[in-house]
């Protein structure tokens, strides 16, 4: 359902993405892993046009777009089919949890308020936060805010949800609650593209894992294969470090 071909992006002289291609099928949970600065987040941001790629093609539901030349109208249209969860949640601070979830329904999609509220409440229930519906972001913990952000992304019934390091800004003890919600979504068949440093999630929840370094995809494959039998030396090393790290803990 989503395919990107030969995406390139530079910040000044620094080439952040070099001819990156990636395919996500319906129902896939794809984790992008790799060291910091490898271009994972930039890739995700380019796919949702938060950064304008220098070149590349995006195929979404069979429709083809030039990532550099795509019109504002198409961007708006595509964004209505996708959801995005940020590292630092980015909830609307002037709105309650419920209003955060309703905003995309009422304002962007013109769904009647009553109906939108019902959808919003269902999605808050899904992330286990029915009791926080009237809380403002500053009244919630990071984990709760991130779950509201997930509910906000879910509410619009996106065809794919992008997650940009959704647990990286969280206290260790709050990471679990967010990962649990994400696992539920994966089990329910949501299509997800996840940039993550959570090796456990990548290994156990995702169907496919992509390893990136220095703006290129070094290896991709089934999660099991990548973690148990990596072919690329760097992947081996990177995952090895992760495993070592877990052992030390």
């Amino acid at each position: 359902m989503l395919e990107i071909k030969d995406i390139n992006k530079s910040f000044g002289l620094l080439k952040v993405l070099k001819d990156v291609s990636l395919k996500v099928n319906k129902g896939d949970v794809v984790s992008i892993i790799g060291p910091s600065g490898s271009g994972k987040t930039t890739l995700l941001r380019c796919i949702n046009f938060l950064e304008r790629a220098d070149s590349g093609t995006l195929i979404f539901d069979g429709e083809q777009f030039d990532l550099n030349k795509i019109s504002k109208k198409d961007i708006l249209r595509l964004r209505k089919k996708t959801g995005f969860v940020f590292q630092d949640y980015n909830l609307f601070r002037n709105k309650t949890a419920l209003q955060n979830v309703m905003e995309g329904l009422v304002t962007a999609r013109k769904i009647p308020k009553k109906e939108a509220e019902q959808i919003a409440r269902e999605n808050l229930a899904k992330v286990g936060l029915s009791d926080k519906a009237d809380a403002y972001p500053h009244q919630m913990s990071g984990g709760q805010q991130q779950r509201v952000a997930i509910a906000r992304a879910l509410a619009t019934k996106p065809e794919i949800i992008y997650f940009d390091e959704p647990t990286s800004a969280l206290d260790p003890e709050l990471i679990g609650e967010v990962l649990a919600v994400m696992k539920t979504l994966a089990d329910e068949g949501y299509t997800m593209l996840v940039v993550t440093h959570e090796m456990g999630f990548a290994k156990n929840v995702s169907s496919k894992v992509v390893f990136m370094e220095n703006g290129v995809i070094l290896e991709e494959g089934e999660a099991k294969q990548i973690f148990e039998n990596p072919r690329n030396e760097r992947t081996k090393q990177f995952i090895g470090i992760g495993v070592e790290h877990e052992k030390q803990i």
Partner: protein
Amino acid sequence: MISQRLANILADSFTKILIPGLTMTIPLTIISFSFALIIAVIVALIQFAKIPVLKDVARFYIWIIRGTPILVQLYLIFYGLPSLGIILNPFPAAVIVFSINEGAYAAETMRSALESIPKGQIEAGYCTGLSYMQIMRRIVLPQAFRTAFPPLSNSLIALVKETSLAANITVVEMFMATQRIVARTYEPLALYCEVGLIYLFFSTVLTKLQAAGEKRLNKAGY
């Protein structure tokens, strides 16, 4: 201590000062401040959205207005423009000058308030499917107003007192009314104290309103 004559003058003049206060000073303040807010929001948004050319016009406007005394601006509009055939009545002239002047300062307040909103919320707005205008109207501006409320209240209080400068262009507001009574009665000390106290009263009311407004905004939770 206070002679009967002085007491009479003060009592007589009280309504004679207060009425221009209610019919001139306050309307001048409210009308000018309303226009100033409109100017401020537009000028701030132009800069925030980095609209080419217009943003340079905005910077130029702020530069000129903040860089010249308001008294000069008043004289220029009221006494200067007639040379070009543009003759304005005192009150509208004062409204124009105070609106434009206050607008420049308020625009900077608004701009800094807009810039204080974390950019991530704008990106989140886009990702939720909102358009730029929707994000501005529903997410960014409400928060910016919240941030700008205390400094804008401050400007409003300053403006009440600043309107006394309109006396220079023959607007018969509180200060001018007082000057006229002083000219008749030769009691500057008592009368200027009296008008000062009335200004103080106006400012105090506004300060109380500001406190109430801030309390309400805080209750809103963000």
